[in-house]
């Protein structure tokens, strides 16, 4: 990877971290607020199904995770295991796809 590409990864990680900080606060606050009086599965689905604002929020959340986590693991793998190079980056690209797929599957599962 060129210094420019590595710098772009660094920028992507910082930018996704900023998005995640906001998403996590909204996510936790919503959970705490929503379960105050107890909440059934049917009530949850009633709020999330067909709610495009909800889907948009969680899509951004999931994509930010898919960007942020593999870039962080990239450094961890290099520093802890000495694993670097293209094999590591290909595996992490796969992890990013898996995270995005699992997250979007969950979000769409309660939207549709």
């Amino acid at each position, binding site marked *: *990877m*060129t*210094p*420019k*590409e*590595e*710098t*772009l990864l*660094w*920028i992507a990680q910082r930018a996704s971290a900023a998005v995640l900080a906001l998403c996590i606060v909204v996510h936790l606050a919503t959970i705490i607020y929503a379960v105050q009086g107890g909440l059934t599965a049917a009530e949850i689905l009633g709020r999330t199904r067909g709610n495009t604002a909800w889907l948009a929020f969680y899509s951004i959340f999931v994509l930010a995770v898919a960007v942020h986590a593999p870039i962080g693991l990239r*450094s961890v793998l*290099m*520093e*802890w295991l000495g694993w*670097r190079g293209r094999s590591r980056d290909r595996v992490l690209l796969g992890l990013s796809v898996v995270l995005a797929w699992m997250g979007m599957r969950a979000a769409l599962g309660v939207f549709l």
Partner: protein
Amino acid sequence: MWKGGAEGRFREFDVPRHPSQTVLDVVTYIQRVLDPTLAYRYACRVGMCGSCAMTVNGEPRWTCRTHVDRVVKNDSVSVGPLRNLPVIRDLVTDMSGFFDKWARARGQFKPSRTKKDDVARVRPQSEDRRAVDAGIECIGCGVCYAACDVVSWNPDYLGPAALNRAWTLVKDERDAGRIERLRAVAGDAGCHSCHTHMSCTERCPKKLSPTAGIAGLKREVFKSTLRGEL
């Protein structure tokens, strides 16, 4: 006292205490009186040359300006070679990798003027010059490099001293090597690997903050990337 190469071991010596005795005094006493085979390195003895750095009680320090009173524990002091550098013998490390990284970080000044041009007038109070002043007094002792965990995890990492040097040149308005230098210090082996542990800043005997310089490099590389210069 560490004796031997990388596979050596600590040996004990009894050294008389004196007022205002430095760790370098202790090492010198051992070499002159107790064990003439002891290898160590020093030159100025007054904190200018940066050659006498060693690991004292587990922490990297400049030994000529470290009083025994400040570091002694239970009447004993352990002295070893600097971490993160190959040990040649006893307290002497091979510093060539450390200084090679200064070159890799484009630590050489690249003039933007010729001798036919007028002298550059740099305002001492300008923001850039103040940033240079904050980092310029590095004596190249290697204490920050030995203190840095990222260096121990990633042997390619340029390290705090080389990056601090690059930072002082990036902020030098007379220098013409800005973009190639930013390219040299970006990425996995450069400023982006710094975890901001601040061990370098904590240990620097000259009270510099390589961490601040590295953060500055991250900002400059970021701006240059957005401008498409990198």
